């Protein structure tokens, strides 16, 4: 069976990617990076960011909450120091870009449209500083504008990473489509608050983002909903720990999947998910991958 997926001009050799922020820049585990469908880098911002004070991670049964706070070396150092080292990876490379204004998104896409980069994942889960700090991703109009600006700056694959916090992702997926995106990723972390026994916030960043198995069924709901309502390829993400989870997202309508939190437990997780997915396909005797994608929606 052929598992290749094309989004924009990029052909992913298989449908399992490493999710943003949970696989560094892909340099630490080249064997994994080269064997899976591709890697999405940690978010890159125009200016370097130190990130949030510790603790940055809270664990609860079935999930974690992180408040890394977009720590990253910034556009310049990423281009000068990290991008050249990424040349030695063969894998598809998607750069996750996070701006605090529409212009910053444009600048990031323009500056990073180098040969090595296959595409961008537009991270709209950051506050729009110019307009009162509401998150870009919670305003369909902003999502469309951001997507359009990125689209104008690059002919690389453009993926918009949507949030499902307090916004119907169908609306933002339509906006991303209108803005010219090649795909959307669903979902980014859910908002979360963890407290210490004395009632004060546990995380240094006060609140954080929930990921892991606890958000899987909400993410599946979102993928199913968007895949049936919007004519844009969906990349599924949220609590994928094994091949069956990946298959669930694909059944629900995802063309590709991303493995996040699982890589924290085991940096080989994306590769293991891909191997297990392939085994499941053999066990289930699937004939045609296209029949599997979105079968949930066609079943009812």
């Amino acid at each position: 069976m052929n598992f290749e997926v094309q989004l924009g001009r990029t052909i992913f050799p298989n449908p399992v990617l490493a999710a943003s922020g949970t696989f560094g820049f892909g340099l630490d585990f080249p064997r994994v990076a080269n064997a899976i469908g591709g890697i999405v880098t940690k978010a890159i911002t125009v200016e370097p960011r130190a990130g949030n004070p510790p603790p940055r991670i809270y664990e609860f049964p079935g999930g974690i909450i992180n408040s890394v706070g977009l720590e990253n070396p910034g556009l310049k150092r990423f281009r000068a120091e990290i991008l050249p080292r990424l040349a030695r990876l063969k894998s598809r490379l998607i750069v996750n870009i996070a701006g605090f204004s529409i212009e910053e998104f444009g600048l990031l896409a323009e500056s990073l449209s180098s040969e090595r980069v296959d595409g961008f994942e537009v991270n709209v889960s950051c506050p729009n500083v110019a307009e009162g700090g509401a998150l870009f991703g919670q305003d369909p109009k902003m999502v469309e504008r951001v997507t359009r600006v990125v689209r104008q700056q690059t002919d690389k694959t453009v993926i918009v990473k949507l949030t499902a916090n307090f916004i119907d992702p169908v609306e933002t997926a339509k906006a991303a489509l209108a803005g010219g995106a090649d795909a959307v990723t669903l979902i980014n972390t859910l908002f979360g608050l963890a407290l210490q026994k004395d009632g004060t916030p546990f995380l240094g960043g006060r609140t954080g983002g929930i990921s892991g198995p606890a958000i899987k069924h909400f993410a599946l709901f979102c993928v199913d909903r968007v895949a049936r309502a919007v004519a844009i390829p969906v990349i599924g993400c949220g609590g994928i720990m094994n091949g069956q989870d990946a298959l669930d997202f694909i059944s629900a309508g995802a063309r590709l999947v991303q493995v996040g939190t699982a890589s924290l437990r085991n940096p080989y997780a994306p590769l293991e998910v891909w191997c297990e997915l392939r085994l499941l396909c053999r066990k289930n005797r699937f004939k045609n991958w296209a029949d599997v994608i979105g079968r949930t929606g066609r079943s009812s």
Partner: protein
Amino acid sequence: MKQLTATVTDVQRLTKDIFSIWLNAAELAQTAKPGQFVNIRVGEGEELLLRRPVSIADVFGQKVRLIFRIVGKGTAWLSQVPKGCGLDLLGPLGRPVRIPKGRDILVCGGGVGAAPLLFLTRRLARQNRVYVVLGAKSRKEMILVREFKRLRVKGYIATNDGSLGWKGTASELAELVANELNRPIVYACGPRPMLQDIVARLPGHEIWGFAEERMGCGTGICHCCALARKDGGYIRLCRDGPVVLLNGVRL
């Protein structure tokens, strides 16, 4: 760094809540250096998602020793792994301690903090003059005294209640010892207040400390283990540490 399954060959209870286990892990034993740690998968199913970091306390032949205190679900689970079972672990992780030559060395451990210092002291003692201070709340909570003795280093013991050795804290005793030494390099491991106290008591010294912070991955890919640098920004403790020059960070 490798993912490996290591068989537990021995489990020992050292105090009420401190356990020691020996693992059969030839490659790890050969490659691990003082200051490094392993990240251990704990529990079954998805209840405990993250691994638990534990420092390498000692190495002997093909075996690796881990010593840990029970503080929550993960370490409680670890204390109950029966002999003969396999542990899923990633390691060795972290940056090895650079071993100096021909220096006066002061090693200071508080509570379970003595554990990683055992492996370190073994290596330091080859080419340096090592003085070891071990502290604990009381005699009952003191660990590894015999092991350190066998290394033939000069040892000092402090307990808060005076039930063994000098009465006082490890850092108080460390200050007294340091004053007798020639520009000693200090290596300290223990609770955060102990590390802070040592830094306060020994200004001008080169002090390396085993720092701790909540970790996500232990392998450097998640940026969760931030430790603040004095000159701004954070280091990744699992990569740039866990042993760091305390003079340069904000604990």
